[in-house]
């Protein structure tokens, strides 16, 4: 089948999509957008988190056909014309990235949090990121990074 949808502001067409393919597979294998990651492919780790019509979802749990006509934003679409998004800058600066495999999903989830909640408490950060597994950092630097990202975003306003 053919799937047509918008990714990071650009219309994309994927042809010859097998009905069983996930949005994650189409993004990665058919569109070459490799930022969203394939750590569990069962909706447990959050590494493939992308925005679908503005809401964070696990791209591995979305059937490719469900993306038809909708808007997807991936980690590749977080940075703006002026450079890295606050979450990206903060993760890189605060030591929140080690192996980095969980990072793209965490960035989308954290970006959603600080967009909804400009000054999140630690409890709110933990709750928002509870679906994103990280095996390297023990999460301390991720908390630092989200706090920092909220500050950076506030400064941009």
């Amino acid at each position, binding site marked *: 089948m053919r799937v047509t949808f918008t990714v990071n502001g650009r219309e994309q067409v994927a042809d010859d999509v097998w009905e069983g393919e996930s949005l994650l597979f189409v993004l990665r294998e058919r569109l070459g957008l*490799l930022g969203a990651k394939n750590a*569990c492919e069962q909706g*447990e780790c959050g590494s493939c988190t992308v925005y679908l019509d503005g809401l964070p979802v696990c791209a591995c749990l979305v059937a490719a056909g469900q993306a038809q006509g909708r808007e997807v934003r991936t980690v*590749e679409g*977080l940075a703006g014309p002026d450079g890295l998004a606050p979450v990206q800058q903060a993760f890189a600066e605060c030591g929140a990235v*080690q192996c980095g495999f969980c990072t*793209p999903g965490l960035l989308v989830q954290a970006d959603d949090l600080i967009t909804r909640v400009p000054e999140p408490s630690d*409890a709110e950060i933990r709750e928002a990121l509870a679906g994103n597994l990280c095996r390297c950092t023990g999460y301390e*630097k991720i908390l630092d990074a989200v706090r920092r990202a909220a500050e950076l975003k506030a400064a941009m306003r």
Partner: protein
Amino acid sequence: MTTSATRGNVVAPGRGGVGDSALRPDGTLKVTGEFAYASDLWIDGTLFGATLRSPYARARIRAIDLGPALAVPGVEAVLTHEDVPGTKVYGLDHADQPVLAIGEVRYQGEPIAIVAADHPETARRALERIRIDWEVLEPITDARAVVADPDGRKVQERGGVVRHQPVRVGDVAAARARAEVVVSGEFSVGIQDQAFLGPESGLAVPAEDGGLDLFVATQWLHQDLRQIAPCLGLPQEKVRMTLAGVGGAFGGREDLSMQIHAGMLALRTGRPVRIVYNRYESFFGHVHRHPALMRYEYGATRDGRIGYATAEIVLDGGAYTSSTPSVVANAASLGLGPYEIPNLEIDAYGVYTNNPPCGAMRGFGAVQACFAYESMMDRLGAACGLGPVEIRRINAAGQGSKLATGQVIDSPAPLAEMLTRLAAMPMPAAPDRTDLRNLPGGVSQTTHGEGVVRGVGYGVGIKNICFSEGFDDYSTARVRLEVAGGEPAVVVHTAAAEVGQGLVTLQEQIARTELGVDRVTVAPADDRVGDAGSSSASRQSYMTGGAVRAACAAVRAEVLALARTRLGTDDDLSLAGGKVVSASAGAVAAIADVLGDRAVEHIREYRHRPTVPMDPVTGQGDTHVQLALCVHRAVVDVDVELGLVKVVELAAVQDVGKIMNRLSLEGQIHGGTAQGLGLALMEEIVVQDGLVRNPSFTDYLIPTILDMPPMRLDILESPDPHAPYGLRGAGEPPTLSSTPAIVAAVRDATGRPLNRVPIRPEHICR
């Protein structure tokens, strides 16, 4: 005249030299999604590889019918052991693991056949159509029974026991007769999984010379190569290895996974082949941490001084050797921890069974014993009326103490001081019970505070750094300095695997410090430079750090010689800030001007001091290179009615010799601590009759951001005079001590014995 060639050079703080919290050079690529992991690689015409695995823990294969699989449209190759071009077995320590099963499988998930196809779904359907005529056998799964009757329970022809390592010191019988207090215990540790997030994956590309280019996520390129090339029937120079982006490792990538399979399929089809495991397959695609069964007995005086200790440690390695011999050595040599014990008997065994295969995982044999010996310290303390900190301080080893192996600790090991500092750290406040998120069970609303009891516990761990027991452990670095765009620029090239730990950052820092040059690039790791050894045993800062430093020193010596000739001076010169600096006259020349068109390049191998194998009868010998300590305090709130645990805070004191990069170091301590928390409270591959019951992140739980509490860190720098910059490997020790600290805290809250990790709710509630 003094020669400055051997002098160090200092970079001003903040310039990204040694000691600065320099940022990862790959950080921007990783936050933009552009960093290429092994599972992201793709070139035109690439086929998808897939692996058929055994559903049984032990069975004979009477016949395999590939016909229906080959008939699936889009399938390009279906291969079995008959198609292995060269040697049919491989292994880290001993080649006994079949590339593809030969007439028999010895664990669930053992690879049997591989397929290359045009779509992953095509490959999966082809696997389903491979028909096997099985003779299912009773699996051997009781590790203690194998120790008792190794010849009667042979998974491998060479016998049931991989290695038995005794350690004998003094006269235990006499000490037992004198003991005023005797305590004993039995402990067990479940199978922990590395659960790195980037699945096993890689790309094999056939080359025109009949060889292969392999892009893989591994911990040790050269050891991969030594195993891969013979199985593919190729000379090593025809297999070119390049490190692809690694999504975590933690020991689980020290053994091969998909490398030979992808190579076979690429050679057979003449097309690039990519294999990417999914999470389910990953649980079968790599070795795990050895589960352990342990019996301990300690005797002491009434005032708590240990007179003797005995320990029996049985480690289940699964069906193949992997790194079990070295895991046994660690369990044996470190089996009683960093305590002074005059009389001791330790027996550590590694055995073959049909349970899941086990090998390297962060902490490597020292983790399991640490849970037992720390539990024993608490038990002994309680029997003597002493608190957890006191009993440990009384028996603490230090510099000059002997390990169980007789090896004298010859660099700082300030355990008693570390415990004092740990105990002095502020305690967290009582939970704000108006916010359910602070309570065990959290937003599940299992309690509003009723039945919640606080507990505090302590844990100590000791880990050997670098490869022990006489292994010729070295690393190689090539460093090149030349002018680029008018500025001096350094390229550092090694085969060392960046797995997330920050080694690329550290290599840059060392080059900046040693050469006084800001612009440093770390070239992609590959096998076109000498062996760097494994990214394991917390050894790369020491070993590849040492190699980069040595190569930089050689480059610096040549540059300074050029400068002396050019300037006609015998002055004491060094390099800093892109300049040649004279001790008397300050900056005397730009490095760029001294170099001109010349490139200065040197390669150096770095070796740590030699070690010896453990004596096979007494376990004695100077077997370890370096020893590292970490201590943890855990504070927990336990819902004693439901058996739910919330870790409130973890505090740690670690001595790292020298803080090379505080930001990365803290990340290592946090992350290692989290993995220890996982082992204490949730992580276990559950096995029944040799079969894994929970191969998914739905059922194998690793700590989330809700499980991991805030941490307090106190990092000490007592330099090790034998090590580069005085540093001490730091990645593994926190993984040891956090587990027993958390278990002790839950014991403190519940009064339960808790002799097994991970703790389950039923252990708390009964």
